[in-house]
């Protein structure tokens, strides 16, 4: 297993380099102009100077290599220096700067990450916690009213987009009932119980919108996987052994059914970091999704490039984690 992990990590390096090149080319070759959002009164020579100041005068391959150097060499040293107070000589090295704000992209990401993790992350956790019992009970009582209801809700979660459910919740609970704030206040700090309650209240709606969406998918997976296993011969064996129904379902069926579900859950984790672009827009959560959208609109190549590449790293990493989990959970699978 250890050798397998090392080999997979080594293989991930060329994969990620290739992905970074593709992302760079796509973003760079796209017909966008970082000065397009500036006032029309600025003459074109000045615009040209601005572009050259941003480094756009260099040929494409030089720009790519510069980005690589900054991302893989300068930025990690900067992070280490800031985190531990060491001096690695990175103080004066150029960092990846956002074209829009002129601040380092990594700092922007670190600023936005907590909001995204709080809202999208807890939505994912809540979604999983709801989905597993629904999937299990739906499968165990297949075609019962509970199963029909669960299927119906899943279909709603699947098919109704978050920008609709989000706005619907705002109309009902913020406008009509006034229970929850419609705008997520990012500057809010939790200091005492009442501010904690406010934080909970402002999280309720975005979290439930996203949780419904996540739960819809995972509960279907859980149900399908349980149904697969419930009809297996070894379940009949377990019943013939005279085990209690609880042991049969929770030990024999559930443990085997969780194998594919756990990997699906692991593969979904990178999307948490990617933020929920639309939901963050609806509730004005300025997380990573919103950062990405604004950067795309402003033609901010370094930010888009860096964010997208971090998502790519996370996806490759969690694919590996899913594979390793599979090996741990299923004794039939051996990596060597």
């Amino acid at each position, binding site marked *: 297993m250890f050798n397998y992990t090392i080999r997979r990590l080594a293989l991930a390096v060329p994969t990620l380099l290739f992905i970074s090149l593709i992302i760079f080319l796509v973003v760079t070759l796209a017909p966008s102009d970082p000065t397009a959002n500036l006032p029309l009164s600025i003459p074109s020579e000045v615009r040209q100077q601005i572009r050259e100041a941003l480094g756009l005068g260099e040929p494409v391959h030089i720009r790519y290599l510069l980005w690589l150097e900054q991302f893989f060499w300068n930025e990690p040293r900067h992070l280490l220096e800031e985190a531990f107070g060491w001096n690695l000589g990175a103080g004066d090295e150029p960092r990846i700067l956002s074209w829009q704000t002129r601040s380092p992209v990594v700092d922007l990401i670190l600023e936005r990450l907590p909001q995204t993790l709080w809202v999208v992350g807890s939505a994912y956790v809540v979604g999983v916690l709801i989905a597993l019992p629904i999937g299990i009970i739906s499968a165990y009582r297949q075609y019962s009213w509970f199963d029909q209801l669960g299927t119906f809700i899943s279909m709603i979660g699947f098919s109704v987009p978050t920008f609709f459910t989000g706005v619907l919740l705002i109309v009902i609970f913020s406008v009509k009932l006034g229970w929850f704030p419609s705008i997520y206040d990012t500057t809010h700090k939790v200091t005492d119980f009442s501010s904690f309650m406010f934080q909970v209240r402002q999280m309720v709606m975005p979290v439930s919108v996203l949780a419904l969406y996540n739960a819809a998918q995972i509960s279907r997976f859980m149900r399908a996987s349980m149904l697969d296993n419930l009809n297996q011969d070894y379940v009949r064996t377990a019943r013939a052994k*005279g085990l209690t129904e609880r042991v049969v379902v929770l030990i024999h069926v559930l443990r085997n059914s969780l194998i594919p579900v756990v990997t699906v859950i692991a593969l979904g984790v990178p999307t948490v970091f990617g933020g929920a672009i639309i939901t963050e827009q609806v509730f004005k959560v300025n997380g990573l999704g919103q950062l990405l959208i604004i950067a795309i609109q402003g033609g901010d190549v370094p930010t888009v490039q860096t964010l997208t590449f971090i998502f790519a790293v996370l996806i490759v990493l969690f694919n590996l984690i899913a594979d390793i989990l599979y090996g741990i959970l*299923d004794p039939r699978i051996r990596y060597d």
Partner: protein
Amino acid sequence: MFDASAAPLVEVHGLKMYFPIHAGLFRRKVGEVKAVDNISFTIHEGETLGLVGESGCGKSTAGRAILRLYDITDGVVRIDGQDISDARGEALRRMRPKMQMVFQDPQASLNPRMTVAGIIGEPLDEHARLSRRERLERIYELMDAVGLNRNFANRYPHEFSGGQRQRIGIARALALNPKFIVCDEPIAALDVSIQAQVVNLLEDLQERFGLTYLFISHDLSMVRHIANRVAVMYLGKIVELGPRDALYSEPLHPYTQALLSAVPEPDPDHEARRQRIILTGDVPSPSNPPKGCNFCTRCPRVMPVCREEEPDFREVAPGRFVACHLFTEETDKKTAGQAATEASEQVQQGE
């Protein structure tokens, strides 16, 4: 061996197992599959009853229904004097140690995520109070009994061959000292070379532990080897039941005759000259069985009465039961007897 005076360990009377067919928008019940339709037999202690029939005739369903792995539709099942036909939940669970099952597919019937020790030991946790050491000792004992190396206790089922997996399945079934074991085609999924090993193991265990078997199989020669008495099933019903030697040498029911004539002869000369009874047509659907005798659509000796009335399952000679109109009336009995002798002569030629 077969002893008519001893009280039967297993009594099955009028067992019916119907599965509902749901269809339509509201999944309303539109019919039922009569997988097992009114079967009755007894098995005495220490005896092996072979249950044979073609695929889909309800053999396995019968075996599972007798062990109450299904909720039976109707009938009485009594094991060791206890009526288990209506037992449910906890009460049924407490009766499980007495009756066990060896399943057909040794790969699928073992939980892939449990070690051998876990699989064999799990019933002990549930039904016996043993210390850790006693439990392990018992697991080793069972592994020895079925001829598995003790060192394999911590391995997973997929690390074994088919024959070894079936040994695990047998050890698991033996864990609680059952009296009655249903062997549901235990050798069908195994190589021919391994089949003999497993059948011999089952016979050894029967002798050592005084087990009673219901041996379900479509392998007629294997049933002839292991069973004391044989029941033949067709479309959910037992058509003939009798002592092994009598049934194989002189089959009474036309279906049994056809079934036995399908067994190939080892001698190619005989095989070439042998007259087989070829049945035409397909087995009718168990959701819509024919009127009268179930076999009337394919029977080579069909009579008008067969399409009207269902034949009774009756004793025509001591210990020999058959459900066929050929044997219901005295006049027919004679001709049927002749027919049976003719047919059995054909079958016996190979011996």
